[in-house]
């Protein structure tokens, strides 16, 4: 059987039942493809065993880029390229450069982080998502299990595990 094509899909009504179910399903040795929810469920990342995202590091690095860029730009422009006497002050003095440095730090950090998020999450306007169940943005939590990834267990066995862990519906879904 091809991977990433044939799925068993469990539908859950309640986020607490879902969290319990994830633990039960995983402890019975089943690999979960992904869980789709209409809202962020707290604790789901630990239940699924996801590692913490490294986006904060990206945000920090982009922010530092902004800081350095802003300082280099201001010091070079006013200190070296075209020095101007303004109120008898130093050509390149740090205090008046702080506001612009701060703003560019925030700007690059925010834009860089959101851009990174879009890229790593594969989000683009022309992409039509592969939906396991259309209700997953409305009021249902949807757990997708790839049959090929769980070849040790039969389809019926997987369905039974889902049902036993509290799924209100269990469906099958195949993609071209």
């Amino acid at each position, binding site marked *: 059987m091809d991977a990433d094509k044939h799925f068993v899909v469990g539908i859950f009504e*309640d*986020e*607490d039942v879902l969290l319990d179910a994830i633990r039960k399903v995983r402890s019975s040795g089943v690999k979960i493809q*992904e*869980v*789709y*929810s*209409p*809202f*962020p*469920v707290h604790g*789901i*990342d630990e239940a*699924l065993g*996801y590692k913490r*995202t490294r*986006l*904060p590091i990206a*945000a920090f690095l982009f922010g530092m880029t902004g800081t350095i860029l802003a300082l280099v*730009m201001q010091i070079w*422009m*006013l200190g070296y*390229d*075209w020095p*101007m006497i*303004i109120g008898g*002050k130093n050509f390149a003095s740090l205090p*008046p*450069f702080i*506001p*612009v440095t*701060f*703003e*560019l730090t*925030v*700007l690059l*950090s*925010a*834009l860089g*982080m*959101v851009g990174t*998020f879009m890229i*790593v*999450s*594969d*989000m*683009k*306007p*022309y*992409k*039509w*998502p*592969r*939906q396991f169940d*259309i*209700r*997953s*943005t*409305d*009021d249902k939590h949807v757990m997708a299990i790839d049959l090929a990834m769980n070849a040790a267990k039969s389809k019926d066995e997987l369905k039974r595990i889902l049902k036993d862990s509290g799924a209100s519906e269990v469906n099958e879904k195949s993609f071209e």
Partner: protein
Amino acid sequence: MQVVSAIREPLITGTKTLKDVSHDISRQVEGKPTRLWWTAFGISLALLSWGAYCCWMLLWHGIGVWGLNKTVGWAWDITNFVWWVGIGHAGTLISAILLLFRQRWRMSINRAAEAMTIFAVICAASFPGFHMGRLWLGFYWALPLPNTFGSLWVNFNSPLLWDVFAISTYFTVSLVFWYMGLIPDFAVIRDRAVAQGNKIRALAYNALSFGWQGGAKTWMRYESVALILAGLSTPLVLSVHTIVSFDFATSVIPGWHTTIFPPYFVAGAIFSGFAMVLTLLLVTRKVFKLEEYITVYHIELMNIIIIITGSIVGIAYITELFISWYSRVPYEGYAFYNRVQGPYAWAYWSMMTCNVISPQLFWIKKIRTSIVATFVLSIIVNIGMWFERFVIIVTSIHRDYVPSSWTMFYPTMYDVGQYIFTFGIFFTAFFLFAKFFPVINMAEVKSILKSTSEKK
């Protein structure tokens, strides 16, 4: 497990299910606009077109069409600029600072408040833009772009340039923050459109949602991004009005160079921003029948923030007066004596009444939980905040150092027209937003539904 509080009031009333939330909010987007909406939108467009005519006249003839003179070189333009920027502070405050403080009542109001922020910042930015006279050269004057005069760079020592960076960063980051919140909700509308068989809407909202799926991994990253954006926006929102106040505070004009300006301006900004959020939301909840999502409890909490910030502003006014006397600087003393007693005393006392006295009425529970009283007072607060900026700007400069240049400021039709122009932008944009975008953050409301909603 979630803990349901027996003490706290529910944030969402009317025993809603998750499906009800999707339905109640998406309904506005899916239905045909009502006659009321068309009327309101038509009025906004009329304001916008009249304002656009005034802007055209200004660009054609130059800023001489405004009522500015040699002594009063800054008046309505900067007053309106600061007023709009101030209004634009509530949205990011609600979505960022209240997120960090885990105030869950913000979830019903943050979407509309952030939209308002973005539109208010656009309105604000139009004033310095048009004041440059030659708008099309603005980029060269305001941004460090290479040019053929040297390159002669912009002056990074000037608070006016700091403003350019502060306002544009604030606009961009607020826009990104707002849009991030909208992404999962656009996906809700897309999936409802698929279920309803509306292909065009499904495609359009899918593009808007960037193909959102809502997988656990994406949600985890998404929450991390939201938290960091909140952390970045918190100092940002405080920095913006601080930098706006530097326009005055770093000058040497009596009445302007006061060190309390940054905190005083920030408090005033939150004060006026919350008032504008209330004005708009009281109408929105009525028109779109969202009383169960934006409850009287939400309104009461916002009114409490208005009391706090209004009182901070009041203390700032009194401190200013006291310091002008205590400093024994004759120029400073005169600037404030002139505010209280001079030809613009009416403006000063309007400001005092609207900003310091009227919000104190919210100490009375009956008033702060009354929709009509809140609506009236929210408008009074914004009138007061407009007068605050007018008083600071015009009364400080209309009595120059040389009595022969003493003068008054009289706005012309084009000063008024420019102000109307921004109202046109603001309301046109807001009505478009209210029609085509979900006005309440569905995903966030759903996440708190189990713990803080009214139960059967």
